């Protein structure tokens, strides 16, 4: 909300500067966002009189004018259609800076010298109006500085109000907080009404058929109105608040709303169509044209003002086109009402619109300020529009909304704030905010009805704290609460994983958790998805049920930016809806992805990464966490190549999936290189992880290393062969490792040569060469028999 600084000064009498006012309001909860001078673009702008207007040859849109600015007469080119001889106009002289930070310079336009600019309101920062040049009052003194003539040397204070503070959406509302801060009281404008003998209640009747939506509806009638422009003092207040002046009638309703927060509405009584106002809910499907000219279809959520036959306004949101005040209006029906915040909120959501009026009703206006608001407006109609105010107000208010009574215990207030604030200060603060307070040990507080946000003791404590100022509460210097809190095991585990993976050259990435439902279905057909009911776009339609689409998306982004050698991991969740007996589930997972070339340097040349690079990372984790032996069980997954697609099993439990992505899928992500990826289930991994075990004594007897070169069929799995070797060698074999895999020259087609190193050692004695030879023989025999191996011993 924006409001004039001078207005706040006028209401409070406080001599604070605009900056000081803004700062103090910020520190009491009315957050100031901007302090802008209204005269920002008025420097070197003076009142001029248009003496001559001439056409410019060959340019129909512009005209040459001679303008008297007092000291001199200027020749100025003007493009506005409304410029005319005799007008008093604002002239920006050379050197002036107008809105948009445009500096006025002496220029030649179409060969004609121009020494200034005749300005429209938007160029002066007064409003957003650019329809034509601003035409000033005929009495404006030629040559005077515009800001002096307009008395427009003010500041606009812009505030971002919290949604609970409906009471602060007005000049008086903000002034109340200022008054509490400054120890003064708000000076409300005086109202002097001269009511005529004709009674309002004879002319109009009001009824609310929906006391929930409309607990109070008040009306006044004003005759003999002359519609015209508002005086400048009203326009100024509207302009600083960002509201465009329209006519004295509309401006006065807006002014009163800005002043005290109660939205008003003025109908042309002659166009109203009856002499009764009936408030009711709209009928489902009812059609109504609002004053912006749009025909709207209403639902029963929307509250209507009717003339007993048909709608005349959408209550609290927008008036209707047909009963709008026009230049011809002479008799006004003035409405001041209290509508339920919830009903207005639902209604304006239904209609998809927010107005100055609906924003205030939605946050709660003061139901008991309605008489003041309607009288204030009536008095202004009387004084400014020459109106005759009929006697009395018709007021449908069958159940008065009473002030709340709340007890405030000073001890409780101190216990929340952590200060020794005396009860007298609490009382003073609350009274400053126009609460009534009695009692001493416990304060009995009457909450004014403009503070609908306050309903319990803690609300009062908040008021005391914000006016006292958080800055005046000393910071505690001691830590409170438990002395020690155990660490979170998952957090530690994940951070350790990060360190290991970083150490072996993997970069951490973070997906945002949302994914494309169609792609997810293609990758994991039939896997349940958490579907978003209101997605922002098609490619963010579900919560991901696998981390791999995220990993691929990220790889794709990097590859498209020519970062092609990737080793990525992500720790994140996969999401599942309730399904076959399981509740909503979020599984913590680890994804790994490698693609492109292996890390290289001047000595070690790059080579394309393969399955074993990824497997190495998985094995590093297995080693670190002492996981049980992994089994790579061939599996069939839509997104992995059939040959290179495995479920990792440990202790018989599936721990994750690893393999090579299909070229087809990679291509979908614009990746034209091999991609290997794994997705591991963290809870399973954590469960299977073992801490460091007991120490084994260092060997005292010597080791006996032996190598075997084994030529076998390509189709034989080395792992299976190693398992057999281990089995046959028994406990004497301390380690069995593969040191070479070769196929090609010197090896028969369809075969491969595997170099296996076996280290024999006993913890109890030195092994004799006979023992070792026997073990070797047994292994070789097994390999020949079971794997049809051709073996050379080394």
């Amino acid at each position, binding site marked *: 909300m924006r409001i004039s600084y001078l207005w706040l000064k006028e209401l409070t009498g406080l001599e604070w500067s605009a900056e000081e006012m803004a700062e103090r309001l910020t520190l009491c909860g009315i957050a100031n966002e901007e302090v802008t001078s209204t005269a920002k673009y008025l420097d070197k702008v003076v009142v001029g009189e248009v003496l001559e207007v001439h056409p410019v040859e060959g340019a129909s849109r512009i005209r040459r004018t001679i303008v008297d600015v007092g000291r001199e007469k200027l020749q100025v080119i003007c493009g506005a259609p409304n410029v005319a001889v005799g007008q008093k106009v604002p002239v920006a002289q050379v050197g002036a800076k107008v809105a948009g930070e445009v500096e006025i310079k002496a220029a030649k336009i179409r060969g004609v010298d121009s020494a200034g600019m005749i300005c429209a309101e938007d160029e002066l920062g007064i409003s957003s109006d650019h329809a034509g040049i601003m035409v000033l009052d005929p009495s404006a003194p030629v040559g005077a500085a515009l800001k002096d003539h307009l008395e427009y040397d003010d500041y606009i204070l812009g505030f971002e109000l919290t949604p609970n503070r409906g009471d602060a959406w007005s000049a008086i509302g903000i002034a109340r907080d200022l008054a509490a801060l400054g120890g003064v009281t708000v000076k409300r404008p005086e109202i002097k009404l001269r009511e005529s003998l004709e009674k309002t209640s004879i002319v109009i009747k009001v009824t609310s058929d929906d006391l929930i939506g409309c607990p109070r509806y008040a009306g006044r009638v004003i005759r003999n109105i002359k519609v015209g422009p508002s005086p400048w003092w009203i326009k100024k207040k509207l302009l600083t608040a960002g509201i465009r002046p329209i006519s004295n009638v509309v401006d006065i309703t807006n002014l009163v709303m800005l002043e005290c927060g109660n939205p008003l509405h003025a109908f042309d009584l002659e166009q109203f169509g009856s002499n009764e106002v009936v408030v009711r809910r709209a009928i489902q499907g009812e059609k109504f044209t609002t004053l912006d000219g749009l025909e709207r279809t209403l639902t029963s959520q929307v509250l209507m003002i009717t003339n007993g036959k048909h709608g005349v306004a959408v209550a609290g949101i927008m008036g209707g086109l047909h009963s709008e005040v026009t230049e011809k209006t002479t008799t006004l029906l003035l409405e001041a009402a209290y509508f339920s915040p919830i009903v207005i909120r639902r209604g304006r959501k239904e209609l998809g619109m927010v107005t100055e009026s609906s924003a205030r009703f939605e946050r709660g206006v003061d139901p008991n300020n309605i008489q003041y608001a309607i009288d204030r407006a009536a008095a202004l109609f009387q004084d400014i529009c020459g109106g005759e105010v009929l006697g009395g107000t018709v007021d449908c208010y069958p159940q008065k909304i009473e002030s709340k009574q709340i007890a405030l215990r000073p001890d409780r207030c101190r216990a929340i704030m952590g200060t020794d604030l005396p009860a007298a200060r609490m009382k003073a603060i609350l009274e400053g905010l126009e609460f009534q307070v009695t009692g001493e040990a416990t304060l009995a507080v009457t909450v004014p009805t403009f503070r609908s946000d306050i309903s319990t003791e803690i609300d009062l404590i908040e008021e005391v704290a914000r006016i006292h100022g958080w800055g005046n*509460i000393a910071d505690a210097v001691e830590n*409170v*609460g438990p002395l020690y*809190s155990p*660490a979170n095991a998952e957090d530690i585990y994940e951070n350790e994983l990060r360190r290991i993976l970083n150490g072996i050259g993997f*970069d951490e990435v973070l997906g945002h958790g949302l994914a494309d439902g169609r792609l997810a279905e293609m990758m994991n057909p039939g896997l349940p998805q*958490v579907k978003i009911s209101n997605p922002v776009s098609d490619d963010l339609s579900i919560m991901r049920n696998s981390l791999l689409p995220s990993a691929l998306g990220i790889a794709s*982004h*990097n590859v498209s930016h020519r970062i092609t050698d990737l080793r990525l991991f992500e720790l994140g969740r996969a999401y599942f809806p309730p399904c076959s007996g399981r509740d909503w589930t979020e599984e913590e997972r680890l994804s790994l992805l490698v693609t492109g070339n292996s*890390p290289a340097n001047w000595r070690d040349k790059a080579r394309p990464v393969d399955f074993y690079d990824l497997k190495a990372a998985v094995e590093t984790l297995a080693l670190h966490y002492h996981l049980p032996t992994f089994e790579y069980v061939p599996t069939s997954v839509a997104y992995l190549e059939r040959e290179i697609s495995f479920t990792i099993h440990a202790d018989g439990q599936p721990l994750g999936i690893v393999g090579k992505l299909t070229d087809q899928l990679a291509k979908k992500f614009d990746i034209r290189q091999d991609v290997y990826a794994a997705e591991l289930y963290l809870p399973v991994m954590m469960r299977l992880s073992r801490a460091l075990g007991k120490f084994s004594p260092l060997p005292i007897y010597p080791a006996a290393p032996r190598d075997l070169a084994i030529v076998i069929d390509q189709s034989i799995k080395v792992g299976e062969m190693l398992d057999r070797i281990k089995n046959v060698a028994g406990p004497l074999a301390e380690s069995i490792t593969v040191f070479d895999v070769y196929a090609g020259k010197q090896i028969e087609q369809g075969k491969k040569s595997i170099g296996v190193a076996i280290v024999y050692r006993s913890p109890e004695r030195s092994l004799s060469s006979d023992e070792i030879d026997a073990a070797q023989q047994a292994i070789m025999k097994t390999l020949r028999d079971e794997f049809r191996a051709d073996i050379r011993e080394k």
Partner: protein
Amino acid sequence: MSILDEVSHIEQDAIKRISEADSLDLLRELQVQFLGRKGSLTAVLKSLGGLSPNERKAVGARANQVRELIEQKIEEATSRLSSAKSSSSFDPTLPGTGQYLGVTHIVTQTMNDICGIFERMGFQIARGPHVETEHYNFEALNFAPDHPARDEHDTFFVEGGRLLRTHTTPVQAREMEKRKNDLPIKLIMPGRTFRHEDISTRAHVSFHQVDGFLVDEGITIADLKGCLNAFTHAYFGEGLKLRFRPSYFPFTEPSAEVDVACYLCRGKGCQLCKQSGWLEILGCGMIHPNVLEMAGIDSEKYTGYAFGVGVERPAMLKHGINDIRLFFNNNLRFLRQFN
């Protein structure tokens, strides 16, 4: 000239010429000249025959001392000259061939930094679901239905009646309910949150947050201020001023927003702080009695404070990052700057 004088003369001459030598060849020559079989010092030693045993002993000792000194000087000069212009083919200037060290995502690093500070103050980390119920995300946190406060939480709803949590505070409601009989509770809740927004430089559908709270007897605003002061100084730097602006959150009362004096201009106003001198970093307040009561905690006996800090925003402020999308694009040229 006595023989001892002659030895001293040789000593001085040798030291001077060795120090001036500019090549290894010359040093070898000097070695021969002074210490060689026909060298000057050798000649002195050979001429001791005519002296008394006492004189012989004294001159011999002195000559040996000089020999050792010359040897030492030659050695030093040799290493000086050879290192200056090595004739070795070994090249230590080639880069090392170590492994690339991967980077932890800057969001994770920031979150860990924030959590680390609170953990050292005795907070424990708690987690909760991202797909939340309306109850824990809103109702249990005192968001009345149809209250304008809900407008500030643009929400993704999912089929089946849940929503994506709009803040990490629902974990507070869950944990309070779970541990209501095991007070005090002192937790921080880091994690991912979601807002139904169009993706732009300033907004994303997903971002991270660290919320925290403490429930115990006798907790006050003063305690909250002390805690957040300690945090801010640890995270942004000592000596930076804080200001608490009263504000509104449905789940805390009284509530405040916390601004820290801009660490770049120290409050004078600059581009980073949009000339205000302040950076908005935290929301906080005393836990609303309704929220305690809904969790089954006696709000007369216990009070508590709660706070929430963004993760992307402080990271953006600290590292001058101007586009929130960079965090989720995961361009490695971006991520690797934080290694």
